């Protein structure tokens, strides 16, 4: 029996309500579907794959008469290979030699190239739907040329698209005299993600791209440990071992050096009181590593101890995107024998300084300008001896050349496909230039360990050298010992810009060179030229610097900042009387390069 309070629904009311519910459900379905289409399908990215520019890649340092390959890639406006290109290109050489005051053009250069004029072939009919580099049987937007140069000097390959008359330049190549002793300059990206964690593409696809398209000499995937289906000692699907196996399978001595690496990612903030910051990449010298993650090891010290007890291999580690306020750095955990470098730049932006007037690439979700203790400059003020490197931290499967900065960012149909589908970064990626005698895994590891490296952005490979009183970065632990605090320091800086330009009408130059001393901008040189080669004296008194922004928490301990969980002694956070210098170059594309620091240690 129905009570008087119960409403009796008429059939028409019921039908109306049911229609209303149906319309509501349909609206929800349409809303989500249309939102997905708007966010993830980009018609111009899908339709466009035409020629936009040429990218010419050369090794950075070769020996006189040594045969080597240069590669010409045809890019579309999203910096992907344009597979349908069938234009004719002409290759020429542009040469210079350094002198005491700068450089001068070099004439009478003897050189050979396999084909000085060449018409590209194509059998790629997929446009932007399928990547050109996976289609064999024709050039499909990428061609190698055999070259040798018989005249020592600085050279650029100049490639002209004969249909349009567009002229593009390579990165610089230094030809050393035959029989001389020199180190090679290798380029790599050692921070990127595959779909084994939150990136795109299978690890083998990512390595293949890095080797064959980004044309890297060395590379390391650093997938998030926490996203492997492996907890503690329980292994599911053996995916972690598969990840190591793939890294090893791509290693080819002399051609492509891969490093076994992993990213430790503190994830449990808010759930448990662990470290909220300090994402850290670990690199191993050998071909294996034990598994560790934030579920088993709660802070860097735990992992260092665990690794020292569980592997005989050497390892090193450093943090990155140090200025992301959602996962910044905790330099309280500094360990000089393990933290050898710092990633100053990636697709997240630059971690150099919170001062945006000095940082043209402020990190996504950066700390405000009054925050202290997270930046690379602050770490150096604390007396931490960190070399400078850069990586892409790419999540789009394009290690060594990500495209999140182009309009193709986030499109679901851009190969390689992503499970996560989103792109975390906003900027071009970064690369690390590394001076090493030969290209193999241990040498690359050792050069990184000795900080024989510098940082660059995007795909640029400028040549940078920096010495103080003849001591270069990495030499003598990157330290110049001088007799007293009033000794004059002679800084010698050589920078040769990468000739890359997306606009054939504009030649790429160095626009300025900035010298930072004790993390303060000390000197700016306006350049507007392709080569900067200068000697600068500093006769001011060596003072050293310190980090003066430690905070004392309720437990009575001092910390480098409020999020830090590792107590420090503020009296020790200084450079112990040494000054340090690093150099930052900006080119006319707005691309930066960093080299240094070198510390100057007065004995007295």
């Amino acid at each position, binding site marked *: 029996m129905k009570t008087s309070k119960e409403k009796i629904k008429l059939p028409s009311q019921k039908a109306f309500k049911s229609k209303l519910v149906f319309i509501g459900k349909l609206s929800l*379905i349409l809303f989500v579907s249309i939102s997905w289409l708007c966010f993830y399908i980009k018609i111009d990215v899908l339709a466009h794959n035409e020629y936009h520019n040429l990218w010419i890649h050369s090794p950075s340092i070769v020996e006189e008469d040594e045969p080597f390959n240069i590669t010409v890639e045809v890019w579309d406006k999203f910096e992907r290979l344009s597979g349908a290109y069938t234009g004719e290109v002409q290759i020429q050489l542009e040469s210079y030699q350094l002198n005491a005051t700068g450089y001068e053009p070099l004439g009478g250069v003897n050189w050979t190239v396999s084909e000085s004029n060449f018409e590209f072939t194509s059998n790629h009919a997929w446009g932007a739907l399928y990547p050109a580099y996976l289609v064999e049987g024709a050039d499909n937007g990428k061609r190698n040329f055999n070259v040798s140069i018989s005249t020592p000097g600085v050279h650029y390959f100049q490639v002209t698209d004969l249909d349009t008359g567009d002229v593009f330049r390579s990165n610089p190549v230094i030809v050393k005299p035959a029989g001389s002793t020199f180190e090679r300059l290798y380029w790599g990206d050692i921070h990127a993600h595959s779909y084994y964690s939150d990136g795109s593409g299978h690890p083998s696809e990512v390595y293949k791209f890095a080797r064959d398209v980004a044309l890297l000499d060395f590379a390391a995937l650093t997938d998030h440990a926490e996203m492997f289906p492996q907890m503690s000692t329980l292994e599911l699907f053996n995916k972690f071992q598969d990840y190591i196996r793939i890294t090893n399978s791509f290693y080819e001595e002399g051609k492509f050096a891969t490093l076994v690496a992993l990213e430790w990612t503190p994830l449990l903030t808010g759930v448990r009181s662990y470290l909220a910051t300090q994402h850290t990449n670990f690199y191993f010298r050998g071909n294996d590593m034990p598994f560790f993650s934030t579920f088993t090891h709660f802070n860097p010290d735990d992992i260092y101890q665990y690794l020292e007890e569980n592997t005989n291999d050497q390892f090193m580690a450093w943090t990155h995107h140090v200025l992301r306020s959602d996962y910044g750095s905790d330099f309280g955990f500094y360990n000089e024998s393990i933290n050898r470098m710092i990633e100053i730049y990636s697709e997240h932006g630059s971690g150099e300084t919170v001062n945006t007037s000095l940082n043209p690439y402020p990190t996504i979700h950066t700390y405000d300008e009054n925050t202290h203790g997270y930046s690379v400059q602050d770490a150096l003020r604390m007396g931490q001896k960190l070399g400078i490197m850069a990586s892409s931290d790419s999540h789009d499967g394009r290690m060594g050349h990500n495209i999140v900065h182009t309009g193709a960012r986030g499109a679901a149909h851009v190969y390689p496909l992503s499970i996560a589908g989103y792109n975390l970064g906003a900027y071009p990626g970064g690369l690390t230039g590394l001076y090493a005698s030969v290209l193999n895994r241990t040498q690359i590891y050792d050069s990184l360990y000795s900080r024989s490296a510098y940082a660059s952005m995007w795909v640029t490979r400028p040549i940078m050298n920096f010495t103080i009183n003849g001591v270069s970065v990495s030499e003598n632990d990157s330290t110049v010992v001088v007799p007293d605090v009033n000794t004059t320091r002679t800084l010698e800086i050589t920078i040769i810009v990468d000739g890359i330009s997306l606009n054939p009408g504009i030649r790429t130059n160095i626009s300025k060179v900035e010298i930072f001393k004790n993390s303060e901008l000390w000197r700016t040189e306006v350049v507007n030229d392709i080569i900067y080669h200068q000697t600068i004296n500093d006769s001011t008194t060596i003072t050293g610097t310190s980090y003066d922004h430690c905070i004392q928490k309720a437990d009575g301990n001092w910390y480098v900042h409020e999020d830090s969980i590792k107590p420090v002694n503020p009296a020790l956070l200084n450079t112990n009387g040494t000054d340090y210098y690093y150099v930052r170059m900006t080119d006319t594309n707005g691309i930066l390069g960093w080299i240094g620091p070198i510390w100057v240690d007065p004995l007295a």
Partner: protein
Amino acid sequence: MQSSSTSDFLSKRMKITYSLVFIIGLSFSYATFMPIGIGCASYLVLQKKSRHFVILGLVLFLLQILVLSINLSTWLDSNFLNPV
């Protein structure tokens, strides 16, 4: 007796089918393959045999909206920050 449109007395086979649709929908609610997730969620929301599975369909939609909002946030970050 309840009407068939709100009945939760499903056969074992239907329960398994709907559960599978939910699990597939959950797996494909990540961004790239979201159309599959949207399809699964739509199927669950529009069916009339189980109110519980309608709710699970709505949960899938909620998850998908969350993923889309993360994308919107990163898109805004990227577009307002990128000076290149």
